[in-house]
């Protein structure tokens, strides 16, 4: 009986692999596990592992200002998860979260009928969907972002598309994110082209660029937890869970792509366009790295 069960389980696992193409995400899974482990080890005990991970951070500060050990879900909170000074500052700010007003606007926009009488609910009957975005659409052979989905809903209903990155689009996305809070990120790599898109995003993340010759990785993996000027650099792990984000620097909401485009520009590169292929690939890769983490968007950051 037991033997039979094992046999059935083995067969179903193999056929599952064939049917759902688990092989397309084999490399990505390897990358993701190593990525998560890097962060877990780094923030397990910064004081004991100072030489390896924080060589130039004064020991007294590691002892005084850092919270540890961190668990997987903690990284949702970015630098607030470990950095006491920021955590205290944000506890006050989030007494009255600055994203509340744009979030309310987003809800109103979501429920306001288009000229044809329908609402966004006609496209998103269940608005708790953000955990699946961005996804690789095998029929269209491209990455579909949540911003695209919002605008395609508008066009389908005879409305003009909204400007990407901020404004009303970010507000509607904020509402979808809010309804998706607590859902675990679940990005799939369904075919070979999706795996290629993932690889392209991975390269954009790791390869140094711009006149500063730096990469996303150098600041938000290797230097995460260290201070750039007075700010503790945020971790790439969990970065997409807080989107769209209300940035105090912007004085408003911005989408994941707005944030990523700004980051690429900060390396001294030309700013990539919203919804351009490379930016979508970067978002796809980065979101995959946080697979399994619960969403908590919108959120507030500096």
């Amino acid at each position: 009986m037991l033997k039979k069960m094992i046999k059935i389980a083995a067969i179903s696992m193999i056929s599952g692999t064939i049917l759902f193409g688990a092989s397309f995400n084999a490399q990505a899974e390897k990358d993701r596990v190593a990525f998560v482990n890097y962060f877990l080890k780094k923030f397990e005990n910064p004081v004991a592992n100072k030489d390896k991970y924080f060589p130039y951070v004064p020991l007294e500060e590691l002892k005084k200002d850092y919270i540890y050990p961190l668990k997987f879900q903690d990284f949702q909170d970015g630098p607030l998860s470990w950095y006491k000074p920021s955590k205290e500052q944000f506890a006050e700010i989030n007494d009255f979260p600055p994203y509340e007003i744009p979030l309310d606007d987003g809800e109103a926009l979501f429920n306001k009928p288009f000229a044809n009488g329908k609402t966004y609910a006609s496209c998103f009957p269940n608005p708790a969907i953000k955990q699946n975005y961005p996804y690789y659409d095998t029929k269209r052979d491209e990455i579909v972002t949540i911003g695209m989905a919002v605008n395609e809903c508008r066009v389908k209903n005879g409305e003009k598309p909204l400007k990407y990155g901020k404004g009303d689009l970010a507000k509607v996305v904020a509402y979808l994110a809010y309804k998706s809070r607590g859902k675990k990120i679940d990005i799939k790599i369904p075919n070979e082209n999706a795996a290629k898109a993932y690889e392209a995003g991975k390269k954009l993340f790791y390869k140094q660029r711009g006149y500063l010759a730096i990469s996303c990785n150098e600041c938000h993996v290797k230097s995460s937890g260290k201070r750039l000027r007075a700010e503790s650099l945020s971790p790439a792990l969990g970065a997409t869970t807080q989107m769209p984000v209300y940035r105090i620097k912007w004085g408003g909401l911005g989408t994941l792509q707005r944030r990523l485009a700004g980051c690429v520009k900060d390396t001294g590169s030309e700013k990539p366009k919203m919804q351009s292929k490379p930016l979508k690939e970067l978002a796809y890769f980065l979101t995959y790295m946080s697979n399994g983490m619960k969403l908590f968007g919108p959120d507030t950051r500096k």
Partner: protein
Amino acid sequence: MIDAKKLLVATLFGLITTSAVYAAGNEALVKEGRKVFVTKKLGNCLACHSVKGDPGIPQTGDIGPKLSNLNAYPKSYLFEKIYDPNKTVANTLMPPMGRNHKLTKHQIDALVAYLQETTK
């Protein structure tokens, strides 16, 4: 004898004025270097480095090492470190400020002067 005395006085005077001029020139260069160090659109060095001997600068950046006792190194070494650090350290995070024309050679000279002076 008198002539020799005069010559000595003249030479000493000459030496003093030359070094004063040099010091004044160096002072201006040090000042310029400090500006390059702190200005975001120029060197923005303080983003990653704290620096010994200049408490007026926020000592918060801790991505790179704290800069101290840099007068122990030759000027040319420090210049190269800032101009293109990739040449000496593979895969360094530090940007090639000179090679990528973020700073001019003169600005790097000024930085070196400032760093050597302040981290003594």
